């Protein structure tokens, strides 16, 4: 992977003089997760990292940087968010330079921390072939990368970033992964309505209302003007009832219906690990069934809920 990283740095260095900022990843506070990096000077380029620890989807920063010439490094799934933002005209293609990569999967630091039985003080961590080697306070251990991947990687629809202005490295297929974990949605669909309600009541009871799910969502563009924190209209009150928190999640899911690319940032960001992407997945299944549409795959298409057609192929209104 070394040479791909060097190629990426070279490409960024070359493009930087014409750009206001390039968003990439750098080493994070511990060896298990990298962190977003905003490059504005050539010396910043030395900090760039690229490996499976680059978990964050950087596309969410783009709408906030509109009006600037921005470069962005993107994995396959990140590029789907970029496509969706382009489809919705929330960002401008001509202002954007995408450095595309082929991704072999992104790591879930919390999953790794739970699997790594070698102490809480991570002294160093490095990726070697298919393994993450961790040296920690109680010794050393190795984790197979495949076991530490984010749940979304098991449903990867395309590992190569598209759209892209400069592709770094070789194109390739999504990683072939065994043993995809059962999704919360599968589990929920096997439950009765009462059980589902109980499930969400329990999950929402744990929510601390930090709104990291919303802030991390690349398609949540209301951000500072979110109805969840508004007193007028007063759709969600401030009491700590699961009902209020579920109400916000329902709003979030409905606002992203037919737009969500299942990048998983909402779940990844959640500090208490709630399976909140499930609601968006459920809506996406409906969108697929009704409109045969998946978000973020084609920048020329109009998302189904952004248009009105008198006759929908799969909605037989007159036969109701």
């Amino acid at each position, binding site marked *: 992977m070394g040479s791909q990283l060097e190629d990426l740095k070279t490409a960024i260095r070359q493009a930087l003089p014409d750009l206001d900022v390039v968003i990439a990843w*750098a080493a*994070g*506070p*511990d060896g298990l*997760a*990298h*962190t*977003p*990096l*905003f*490059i*504005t*000077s050539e010396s*910043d380029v030395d*900090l760039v990292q690229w490996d499976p620890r680059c978990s*964050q989807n950087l596309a*969410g*920063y783009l709408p906030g940087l509109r009006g600037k010439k921005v470069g962005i490094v993107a994995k396959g799934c990140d590029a789907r968010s970029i496509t969706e933002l382009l489809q919705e005209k929330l960002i401008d293609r001509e202002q954007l330079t995408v450095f595309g990569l082929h991704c072999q999967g992104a790591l879930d630091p*919390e999953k790794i921390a739970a699997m790594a039985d070698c*102490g*809480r*003080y*991570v*002294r160093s961590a490095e990726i070697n072939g298919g393994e993450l080697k961790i040296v920690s*306070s*109680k010794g050393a251990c190795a984790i197979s990368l495949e076991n530490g991947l984010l749940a979304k990687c098991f449903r990867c629809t395309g590992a190569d970033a598209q759209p892209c202005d400069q592709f770094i490295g070789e194109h390739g297929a999504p990683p072939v992964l065994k043993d995809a974990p059962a999704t919360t949605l599968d589990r929920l669909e096997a439950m009765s309505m009462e059980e589902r309600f109980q499930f969400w009541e329990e*999950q929402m009871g*744990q929510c*601390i*209302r*930090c*709104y*990291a799910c*919303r*802030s*991390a969502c690349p398609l949540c563009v209301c*951000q*500072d*003007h979110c109805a969840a*924190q508004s*007193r007028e209209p007063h759709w969600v*009150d*401030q*009491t*700590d009832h699961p009902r209020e928190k579920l109400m916000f999640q329902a709003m979030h899911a409905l606002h992203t219906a037919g737009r969500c690319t299942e990048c998983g*940032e909402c779940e*990844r*960001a959640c*500090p*208490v*690990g*709630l399976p909140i992407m499930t609601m968006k997945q459920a809506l996406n299944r409906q969108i697929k069934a009704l409109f045969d549409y998946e978000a973020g795959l084609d920048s020329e298409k109009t998302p189904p809920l952004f248009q009105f057609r008198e006759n929908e192929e799969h909605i037989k209104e007159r036969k109701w």
Partner: protein
Amino acid sequence: MGAARCIKKDALLTWLEEVGKSRLVLAPRAQGKSTAFLPFDPAKGISLSGLATSSPKQALIPRHEALLEFRYTKTDQVPAQTGLAVRELIPNQPTLVFGARPCDARGFTVLDRVYDAGAKRDVYYCARRDKTIVATVACTEPADTCFCNRVGGGPGDSAGSDILVTELDQLYVLEAVTQRGEAFLLEQKLPDATELADKAQAARAAVRAAMPEGDSLLGAPDKVGALFDEMPFWDGVAAKCLSCGACSYLCPTCYCFNITDESKGGQGVRVRTWDNCMSFQFTLEGSGHNPRATKSQRMRNRVGHKFCYYPTLHDGALSCVGCGRCIAHCPVSMDIRRIVSKALTYEKAAKEHSNV
């Protein structure tokens, strides 16, 4: 320290169950993928491995607290006249917080200076504080995100605790730190452990000695304060911030709140809920003006409050206890240590962009 008692590790749950008969016991418990301080349930056990995801500040400043209930009433004499019935809800629940860490307990001292400040006593906070015993478990294995030793604390410190608990092989040694802790400990049917006190102290000292040293951040107030008008610095450090509230809400010292009336029909409740300075709405004024409209300004406030404004008001005590929750759980792996270190060495003239 005062009285010392001990308890075998395998008898801990039975003891907590016994304590639970006369007071609410809040202890860390795993639920789903996180750990939080929840009412103790012997069937569900407790989780003392590492630091809980949420801090125990919930015990003293709940995420949501009903301050009072109100109800509008109509009188039949004058139809236009409305009466108002108000009922104050002062907490009155004896509580034991078991399993806080030394950073968490130090966090309580940060809250005390604000909510129990001489003439300005917050009745709700003080009612809880007066009835709460804090039993802190000394750390045995600091994580890489821990930095209590850089902000004036340590993995075996007793500040803010009523009882300090130290692990010794198959035992927990409980030592009284305050008079309140002493009185509580003497009530317990636990064997005396005075002769183990030295051993416990040695165990704590060993953990402290093994914890990697970092540069002290205690000198931050002047440097951070001097950067107030240096917006390029704050723009740089805040660029990747998402403006969510994960850091504030997991923090053991963030104490800001919101008060709202939530009513339905003619009755309702006045609630005090956690608020968070990283949110746009935090400083949004009624006029529509927002003095902290950008995330750089909000980041400056968060770091400034912890490392400059608070210590300036409170004899140099930082309002960061180095628990590292904000680092471990930040969606974009923001590291407050790097921001403060950067501030300590930042040269204004250089006008450098500050990537952290």
